[in-house]
């Protein structure tokens, strides 16, 4: 049973929740309010004066070819990161689940990349694929492939996707492994006796029983790809070449702080805010009542 504490006055509980409220107010509500306010103006580059434009920033953005292209870039990027990181993680989790000896070692090793900050991961991959000194670039050159993500849009996208997915595999791996180990062994054995070979068992028994985990990871990974991959993109491609890897979050930064168009940047933040809210609603709606067997 849930145990509820009853307070007599209003002051003590207020005091207890105050730190959380203050932090939320200062670091979330205030900047969010600022963003909404600023999105209605065009300030001059030095921030000395502002001109009221109403929804002009939004109108301009939504008719902007580059901004709409950024939406598609973000969608492609998010889907690729999610599919790659979840696919690889599931594969590794299945292998680790079958291990009897040494599974602890494998697990620890596979969890390590999670501790690497995105920006550091970006630099790591950048060095490997550097067009002049990168190890991988050199070997690819030996094989006759001329790797140049600075010029080639597809290669640039591939590289940021791999670098972003890499750190994420650890996290997904942990959840998938826990999910796999929660499936009773006898259910798998019963399916084996019923005549199902490995792949059939995976398709008809394991994957359906894993679906709550998969759905949770799907949402979490999409949100990750949307917002937390800034460091990777900034270090590897800075959104290039030709905006090929400029996802929405990166565009907020580059338009605002590189292009000095603070009004547009603020408007983009507001649009992102709406997208986050939608994703959060979806997440709560479905994850809260995810399937219980």
């Amino acid at each position, binding site marked *: 049973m849930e145990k509820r504490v009853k307070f007599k006055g209003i002051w003590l509980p207020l005091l207890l929740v105050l730190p959380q409220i203050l932090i939320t107010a200062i670091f979330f509500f205030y900047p969010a309010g600022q963003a909404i306010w600023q999105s209605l103006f065009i300030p001059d580059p030095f921030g000395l004066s502002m001109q009221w434009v109403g929804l002009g920033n939004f109108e301009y953005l939504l008719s902007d070819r580059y901004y709409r292209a950024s939406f598609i870039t973000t969608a492609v990027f998010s889907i690729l990161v999610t599919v790659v990181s979840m696919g690889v993680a599931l594969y590794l989790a299945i292998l680790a689940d079958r291990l009897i000896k040494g599974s602890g070692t494998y697990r620890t090793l596979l969890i390590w990349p999670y501790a690497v900050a995105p920006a550091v991961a970006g630099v790591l991959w950048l060095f490997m694929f550097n067009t002049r000194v990168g190890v991988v670039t050199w070997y690819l050159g030996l094989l006759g492939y001329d790797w140049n993500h600075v010029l080639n849009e597809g290669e640039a996208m591939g590289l940021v996707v791999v670098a972003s997915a890499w750190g994420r595999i650890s996290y997904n791996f942990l959840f998938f492994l826990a999910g796999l180990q929660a499936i*009773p062994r*006898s*259910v798998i*054995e*019963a*399916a*084996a*006796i*019923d*005549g*199902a*070979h490995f792949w*059939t068992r995976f398709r*008809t*028994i394991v994957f*359906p*029983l894993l679906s709550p985990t998969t759905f949770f990871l799907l949402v979490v990974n999409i949100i990750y790809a949307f917002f937390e991959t800034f460091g990777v993109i900034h270090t590897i491609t800075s959104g290039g070449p030709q905006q090929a890897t400029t996802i929405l979050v990166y565009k907020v930064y580059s338009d605002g702080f590189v292009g000095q168009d603070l009004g547009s940047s603020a408007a983009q933040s507001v649009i992102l805010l709406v997208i986050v809210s939608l994703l959060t609603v979806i997440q709560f709606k479905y994850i809260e009542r995810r*399937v219980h*067997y």
Partner: protein
Amino acid sequence: MATLTLNNVKKSFGKTDVIHGVSIDVEDGEFIVIVGPSGCGKSTLLRMVAGLETITDGEVQIGGRRVNEEEPMARDIAMVFQNYALYPHMSVFDNMAYGLKIAKVPRSEIEQRVAQAAKLLQLEPYLQRKPRELSGGQRQRVAMGRAIVRKPAVFLFDEPLSNLDAKLRVQMRLEIRALQRELGVTSLYVTHDQVEAMTMADRMIVMNGGVADQIGKPLEVYANPATEFVAGFIGSPPTNFITGDLLGRSSEIKLGVRPEHMRLAETGAMQARATYCEALGAETLVHLICEDGTQVTVRQDAAASFPEEGSLVGLEWDARHEMRFDASGRRC
């Protein structure tokens, strides 16, 4: 339907031997119960027949065909697990139809076979439910149904009743036995409950520490146990064991006398102090303690008078009911 033969089957995990060579010829349609305490290797033996554990040495034959190297699915068996192992995301119908669907049996035949099994097991109203919406007894039936629809050569049961409450256990025991008789499928049934073994088995294998101590018909095993372990394990309350020196005989020899074969008497072969009497209605169990601390139980008719607790009474029995065991626990 088929015969099942175990020929000196052995199992080791690394250097630890868990099954030391079990052999039995099971006839077509026979119901064999493997009984023993936990850790005796009975489940491992069953899982080896199922193909879920490798066979270290020896041979398993189903229908005269060696199956050691066969995958579980190729052995033509069906298994009922202790926790039922139903597929939680599938309806009762899909649970039962799963094996048939994989075997690519035509849809109409699947429906007909599942309907038949559901009727037999009184599961018809529940076919569209998920396992979590069923009671323990119903889940047990679904597990049985899943085994039946595949029409296997051999049924394997791994302690199928141990998750049920006592009353349901007695009922399901009868149902499983009736069902097996009706279908006539050769069955191997693992349990730690000697009552289940006694009541269900055509023949039983009493396992102890990876060894089949005795294989035989329940009443034969009961009347004539091969080892001290079997005498103590089969029968409730268990056989009374008395060391020879209490009776002025060799201390190497241990005597076993079933509670129902012991009588209270004025004088007798030995004396013991009554500690507690359990009146069960139809019969009374008199618990006594011998001078060396050995506990014995006497089962007597409820009408017979029983001694006051703490009083010293004599014990006697007929020599023909005496079972003698040597130091290694074998009959002598």
